[in-house]
């Protein structure tokens, strides 16, 4: 079946006017009831595929964006970028790939305590959020990434993170403690249970 051209025009107008990526429900709510939203989106995506602007899906939502190969042209439009330290970037990557993950687990992976301000900066940037708690003694808070994170980094889903599937496959994303210091007397009696309560 083909999408009704009037509906396509409406969706096009909505997506162009949008302040933020729109989910399908938000598009559907503004279009006539019989509009075939998925069909319209597929068509629009195809129509704009080779243009200077493309229809892209970010965090499950749709938006028109400039084509990535033209970024050089748009230097002047660049947002002021946040300065992120190496520790900040690494911590963000660990949270993104390992979520939900506790602070202790982040430190375990990096092999060093999180210095002051790192989590705060990521939280303030709107990229991480508390997600739930582990069902372990102390019920530590777990962290995950936000929709803003996916939009900022141009991802539709966490599983689209580079190399995610391979890393998951090879066990690199297990949050179980490495057990490095478990077996020497007096060191590292930390107990961690990967079991958790999740959302």
């Amino acid at each position, binding site marked *: 079946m083909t999408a009704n051209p009037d509906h396509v025009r409406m969706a096009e107008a909505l997506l162009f006017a949008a302040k933020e990526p729109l989910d399908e429900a938000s598009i559907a709510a503004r279009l006539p009831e019989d509009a075939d939203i998925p069909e319209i989106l597929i068509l629009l995506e195809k129509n704009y595929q080779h243009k200077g602007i493309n229809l892209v899906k970010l965090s499950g939502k749709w938006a028109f964006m400039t084509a990535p190969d033209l970024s050089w042209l748009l230097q002047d439009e*660049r947002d002021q970028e946040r300065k992120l*330290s*190496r520790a900040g*970037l690494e911590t963000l990557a660990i949270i993104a790939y390992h979520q939900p993950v506790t602070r202790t687990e982040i430190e375990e992976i990096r092999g*060093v305590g999180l210095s002051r301000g790192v989590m705060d900066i990521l939280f303030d940037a709107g990229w991480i959020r508390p997600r739930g708690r582990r069902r372990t003694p102390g019920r530590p808070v777990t962290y995950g990434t936000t929709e803003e994170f996916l939009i900022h980094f*141009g991802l539709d889903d966490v599983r689209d993170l580079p190399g995610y599937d391979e890393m998951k496959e090879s066990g690199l994303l297990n949050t179980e403690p490495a057990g490095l210091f478990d077996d020497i007397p007096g060191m590292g009696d930390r107990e961690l249970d990967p079991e958790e309560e999740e959302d």
Partner: protein
Amino acid sequence: MADNKGFFDKKDQFEADDRPVPAAHALVVDLDGYEGPLDILLALARDQKVDLLKISILQLAEQYLAFIEQARKLRLEIAADYLVMAAWLAYLKSRLLLPPEEEAEGPSGQELAERLAFQLKKLEAMRGAAEKLINGTITGRDRFLRGQPEGVTVIRHSKYDCSLRELLKAYAAHQDRKGIRNPLRLMREAVYSVEAALERLENMLGKLPDWADLRAYLPEDLNSPFEIRSAEASTLLASLQMVKEGQLELRQSSSFGPIQVRSRSRKDDE
């Protein structure tokens, strides 16, 4: 540790390794450039130029120990994390070198070495991921949303816009204003530094009987669980350092059992 090096300074690029990685053999010892002991190990491991799962952990342990030794000779301040790793690697080294004991408890030296290699692999994976992430297609840097949006937004159930972050911050700001808690001062006072623990251990050593519970060396005036935990942690780290310096012996008869210490010189007297 180098925390505020802005990797976005250059705006358009991110280099995970823009600081020089000192090669061990060059005897460049600068702990400031590193983000913890695993970071050093990873840098040293890269010198071996093979897959992390195939590196010689024994060689790596020796390099690390030499590196820390060098730092100590230069009287650099070495954070406790690095010393804990040194103690563990010294232990690992002995396990790898000694013939495996029959019915030895716990994992073999080889198993421990594999754990370390895997741990390094995990960190390396995250390093690479961070780099790819920042070199990916970033919204507002590599591709742009419409410059003059006209206002269509996602339809939310609530017509009020409020994020979890705003809610948490509002609660925290309110708690701050109430001023009942002042964790800033409380926690500062509660922290018992490794230096203080070292000083106390050194002074007290030999004043207590042969094998004594490490807890006996804690200061007496601890009140809160915070203070006790902090003192325990620092005293343990201090004792590990003293073991390494040959001043002290440590033992623990069972997992989670009491940790006992005695002066090394005392043993020599026997």
